[in-house]
């Protein structure tokens, strides 16, 4: 097993040499282990950057990314869209929440290459011609943030939460927004802000409340 692990790592490090249907992998001690590889599995080395088109907030963005680049890294480090935040990078905080195919997902556990052709919405696309989205305005009205680090993720998550119909009561909202952690614990105000925006977005009679 140890040699398999060594081989796997050697492989991952790119120290493999192809010999027809065999892959020769040099293990840590310099010895070679061979593994057969069926011809159908032979594939070009696509670990290197390849072109991908990301359709973000209505516009196409062409970039070259390695497969290991997450959507979050592509947004922040390649496209300058730094609204989505890297809090934990492991799916545990929700700061990186964006919409892909109109559903809220975590950009830190999504590969950029896997998003080719899918509509992506980020916080940067919410305000129209400088006019804040009702959710953005509600967060300001209710003072629903302190440091603001979690806020873009909270707002994108809330947008989807309302669309899903999970914002009818405070309890339901808390449960369906639990994937967004706020280290400043602005939770009561976040709940109030989302409830206000949900009413406004539904155009209800009590929208002004």
């Amino acid at each position: 097993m140890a040699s398999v692990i060594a081989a796997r790592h050697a492989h991952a490090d790119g120290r493999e040499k192809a010999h027809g249907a065999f892959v020769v992998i040099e293990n840590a001690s310099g010895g070679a282990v061979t593994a057969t590889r069926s011809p159908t599995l032979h594939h070009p080395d696509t670990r290197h950057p390849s072109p991908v088109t990301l359709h973000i907030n209505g516009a196409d963005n062409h970039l070259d990314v390695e497969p290991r680049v997450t959507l979050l890294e592509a947004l922040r480090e390649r496209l300058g869209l730094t609204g989505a935040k890297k809090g934990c990078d492991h799916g545990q905080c929700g700061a990186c929440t964006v919409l892909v195919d109109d559903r809220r997902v975590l950009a830190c556990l999504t590969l950029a290459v896997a998003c080719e052709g899918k509509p992506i919405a980020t916080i940067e696309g919410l305000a129209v011609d400088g006019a804040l989205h009702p959710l953005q305005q509600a967060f300001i009205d209710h003072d629903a943030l302190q440091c603001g680090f979690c806020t873009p993720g909270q707002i994108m998550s809330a947008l989807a939460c309302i669309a899903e119909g999970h914002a009818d009561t405070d309890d339901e909202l808390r449960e369906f927004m639990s994937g967004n952690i706020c280290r400043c614990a602005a939770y009561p105000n976040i709940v109030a802000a989302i409830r206000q925006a949900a009413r406004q977005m539904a155009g209800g009679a009590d929208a002004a409340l």
Partner: protein
Amino acid sequence: MRPFSYERAADLPAAFAASQDAPTTALLAGGTTLLDLMKLDVAAPARLVDITGLAASTPALAEIRPASDGGVVIGALARMSAVAEHPLVADQYPVVSQALVKGASAQLRNMATIGGNLLQRTRCVYFRDVSIPECNKRVPGSGCAARLGVHRLSAVLGASPACIATHPSDLAVALVALQAVVHLAGSGGERRIAADAFFLLPGDHPERETALAPGEVITAVELPPLPVGARSHYLKVRDRESYEFALTSAAVAIHVADGLIAAAHIALGGVATKPWRSPEAERALIGNVPSRPLFKDASAAAVAGAAPLPHNAFKVPLARRTLERALATVTGLAEGEMP
């Protein structure tokens, strides 16, 4: 993450071939387990084969449809959120719906698939931390750091000297209780296996977690029909109210006919090395009049074989009371609670 190549599986045979090539190649579904573990360097595949697009050519892989016998078949690529909300599941199998909604977060449930959920890896901190040399699951034969380390979250049932890691899935607990069937396919054909048998006890080989063979993929999960009038429920107890794995959980389905329990399906989560079906509790219940004392006895039977360690001893009474409460809730005998 280490460099890797990425491609989309063109068809199921491509997925079989990729599965044959594990762990050098890994199938990518929602990625919520796999990419997390790759960032931690616990998994280091050189090639990812994305199977999420397969539903375009094989729609059944993402469908939720009635089975001919009255049960429900759920495609392996169906997302947790879609399954939880589907009327066929939510109406007939509340225990499955509840287990899904109480798992992870709304974002993760939109990404995660049913197949991936069953194959998620333990959250044992020693498994997830490559700087710790000892973990028999991660490096077979290296030892178990949890036994002498911090094991508050570890298993009290089904552990072996080699491993005390719990199985993290909530869905799997509901599936094992219901005696669901996992559909597998490979180049050699298709096979079906009971959910309980799909998950393996750690024994001397905790690195082997399921009956999935190299070259196979999960294609679906089948929920058998429940008797008309049967009720089911999932109760999950956590360190915090939401977005957390179970300390203890109970999946129960009960059918009461003529005042007696005619059928009982019971499994515990959070406490065992695999989703833990309890034939002991089922036997204690069947044929009896539902009552709080009966539930107390049945719940005690479910944890009678527990072997706790110093930090996780609290799980034994907690699991007992979790099951007791789930049974009371599902039969309408809980105080101040509606089933």
